[in-house]
């Protein structure tokens, strides 16, 4: 049999070349297995998680905004510092008003960003507009910093005729071609391998792709695929994990063991940083370093920003069912990112109580005016529903649309056509 002959052939070759004497004369000090670069040991023992030193949390400020190591204070222009602070505050006011608007039944759904403002603004400030952003959904501040207006936010939440997403998706599923922010999709973690693909496509262009995701999302299979692809295919992508302690009700100790999300980065062979996500200057520094490295080396970086989700998961959630009000209040009062940043700005003489009052009043006015404008706008024409399934409307969908048009001629009083453009 052909198989047998070739096998015995192979054996002959094997024994001719690998006699005991040959092996002795060339001592191998390192294992040669292709699967791992490491050393030998004759000690039988586990490698235990407890032997490993967890990656520390990088910070620049203490809780009251003092710089801990002067060499780490980023050199950011005053006007940029003020923009950063303003956007964090505006985000906060917008959240309060949109949250309440859902409570009053004006919009169908909302998700606040309370407590995570510094992760958004600190990272956004370290990027440029031509970097491509993939978000999860709780990154409104990133979009705001890049220039998405209050009106843009409100229009999307209403799904009105000026919503850039054409009324197709739920509130907070923002997207902007101009701002290089890929439209949010609800299925979790799908954005991660996509971000890697985009980074591959953008290699060598001095742009990075930034991909935000939560501590919960990191458990999906797509997260593994993304990290592994980015490392092996050497893609300039920054994975930015917002570790806010919870995935809806599930606390992180039921989500993963080991050294969090950062701990995984190293084992995939990815340069990794862990940062105080409530320290906007620290987030700025790590993102800046990540971008420089990713662009220069064409390699991925993983950032784990440690923070806390101060708000409920969404307007469909009541977090008092799974965490204590005391725990929440503690984060809201003692380590709130906006407050910490304000202390810093005050110490530099850039901010004070008057300015704060003025900003809040102006912002409230701005949000309210965007709000009442957005609420009055009609929804897009209802036949928009059939558009963009494909680039060109295919015959079968056209037929379905036409029969709905006929149906509405007879039954229009039963449909809310007055809320839609004609």
């Amino acid at each position, binding site marked *: 049999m052909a198989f047998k002959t070739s096998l015995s052939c192979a054996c002959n070759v094997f024994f001719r070349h690998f006699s005991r004497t040959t092996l002795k004369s060339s001592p191998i000090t390192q294992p040669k297995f292709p699967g791992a670069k490491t050393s030998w040991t004759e000690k039988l023992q586990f490698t235990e998680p407890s032997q490993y030193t967890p990656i520390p949390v990088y910070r620049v400020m203490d809780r009251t905004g003092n710089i801990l190591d002067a060499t780490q204070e980023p050199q950011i222009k005053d006007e940029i510092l003020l923009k950063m602070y303003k956007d964090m505050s505006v985000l*906060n*006011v917008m959240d*309060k*008003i*949109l*949250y*309440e608007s859902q*409570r*009053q*039944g*004006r919009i*169908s*759904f909302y998700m606040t960003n*309370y407590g995570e403002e510094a992760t958004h603004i600190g990272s956004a400030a370290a990027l440029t507009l031509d970097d491509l952003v993939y978000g999860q959904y709780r990154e409104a501040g990133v979009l705001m910093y890049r220039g998405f207006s209050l009106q843009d936010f409100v229009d999307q939440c209403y*799904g009105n005729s000026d919503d850039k997403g054409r*009324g*197709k*998706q*739920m509130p907070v599923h923002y997207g902007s071609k101009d701002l290089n922010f890929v439209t949010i*999709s*609800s*299925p*979790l973690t799908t954005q991660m391998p996509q971000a890697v693909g985009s980074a591959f496509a953008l290699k060598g262009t001095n742009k990075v792709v930034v991909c935000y995701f939560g501590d*919960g*999302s990191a*458990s*999906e*299979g797509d997260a593994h695929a993304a990290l592994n692809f980015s490392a092996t295919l050497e893609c300039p992508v920054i994975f930015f994990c917002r570790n806010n302690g919870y*995935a*809806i*009700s*599930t606390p992180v100790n*039921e*989500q*993963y063991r080991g050294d969090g999300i950062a701990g995984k980065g190293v084992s995939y062979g990815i340069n990794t940083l862990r940062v105080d996500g409530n320290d906007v200057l620290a987030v700025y520094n790590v993102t800046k370093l990540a971008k420089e490295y990713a662009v220069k080396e064409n390699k991925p970086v993983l950032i784990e920003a440690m923070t806390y989700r*101060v*708000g409920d998961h969404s307007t469909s*959630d009541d977090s008092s*069912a*799974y965490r204590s009000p005391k725990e*929440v*209040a503690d984060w*809201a009062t003692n380590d709130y990112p906006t407050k910490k940043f304000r202390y810093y700005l005050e110490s530099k003489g850039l901010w004070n109580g008057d300015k704060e009052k003025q900003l809040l009043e102006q912002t*409230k006015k701005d949000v*309210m005016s965007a*709000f*009442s404008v957005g609420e009055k706008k009609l*929804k*897009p024409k209802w036949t928009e*529903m*059939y558009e963009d*399934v494909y680039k060109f409307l295919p015959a079968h*969908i056209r037929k*379905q649309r036409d029969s*709905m048009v006929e*149906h509405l001629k007879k*039954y229009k009083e*039963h*449909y*809310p056509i007055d809320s839609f453009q004609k």
Partner: protein
Amino acid sequence: MVLNKIVKLGGEVLQSAVPLKNKSQRCASHFVYSPDSNSTIKGDRTKMNMFQAINNALDTALKTDPKAIIFGEDVGFGGVFRCTLDLQKKYGKQRVFNTPLCEQGIAGFGIGAAVAGSTAIAEIQFADYIFPAFDQLVNEAAKYRYRSGNLFDCGKLTVRSPCGAVGHGALYHSQSPEAYFAHTPGLKVVVPRGPIKAKGLLLSCIRDPDPCLIFEPKVLYRMAVEEVPTDDYQLPIGKADILINGSDLTMIGWGTQVHVLKEVADLLKEKHSISAEVIDLVSILPWDVDTVCKSASKTGRVLVAHEAPLTSGFGAEIAATIQENCFLKLSAPVVRVTGPDTPFPHVFEPFYLPTKWRCLDEALKLIDY
């Protein structure tokens, strides 16, 4: 609480600047739920909505089967739809527990637990998020027994998942994926129309010797209230229910759509003196060909309605089977009233759904054919 204060502030500002006009319009649902009137199950009854009936079924399963375990995302605190409320408190973390956020993990874990003797009851938080688990369910769960020559099976696996329209769920909180799974030999797929059905079907799924999927129309969780039998009972998988007897046409649906069709039957009767038979298919795989074809042969006119898109929706299978079996008895082609072949849109939902007006329109055309 600080947060409450923050939020309250937002509300005051909002209310004073933009007075509210038509608050309730947004959530007005597209159908009127009607409870089962003639359920024949004996014993005591308690008023329960559908999530409570499901909770009651899960409680029954845990109580009667020491090998039963319940798991999924956020099930520990009761689940985002409250179906597992208090079960962890009652039965402990070894039997009712959160998993990491990973649907393929949940399905694969459930299969393995079932293979090794557990009664595995998994929750996928939304049917829209069952697709990462598609491989485990379609290639693994469905084929376990067949490919091993019956050496191994995962018949003790049940997967529960909320499905269907809610008024504002958009692309990823509204889908009805039953047809994808109906295309998979080896799985069983059921959809309850209310609390009594949900409890009985869920207990049947849990005890069935094959892997089962139960898609629970989420809009019914709170809205649907019935006097639910408190005893342990099961309702058959594979058996349709004739909810209204009629002679002029047959209307077939499942889940929420059944309630739409019941309203249509009322309209047909009152306004047009047309007698419509309404069938709840209940079970998508296997499905009750006999009941459907008997009715189709009697009335000669059939309308099938579902929320999922038209092309390759389960209505296609029903229509094909009816024309195969009842061709000479039909007075008109079987008509399908479904979602269009588009993703499920947010603000356009009222135009997307197979509303009672679309069903009525088509039923009248069917009569005049």
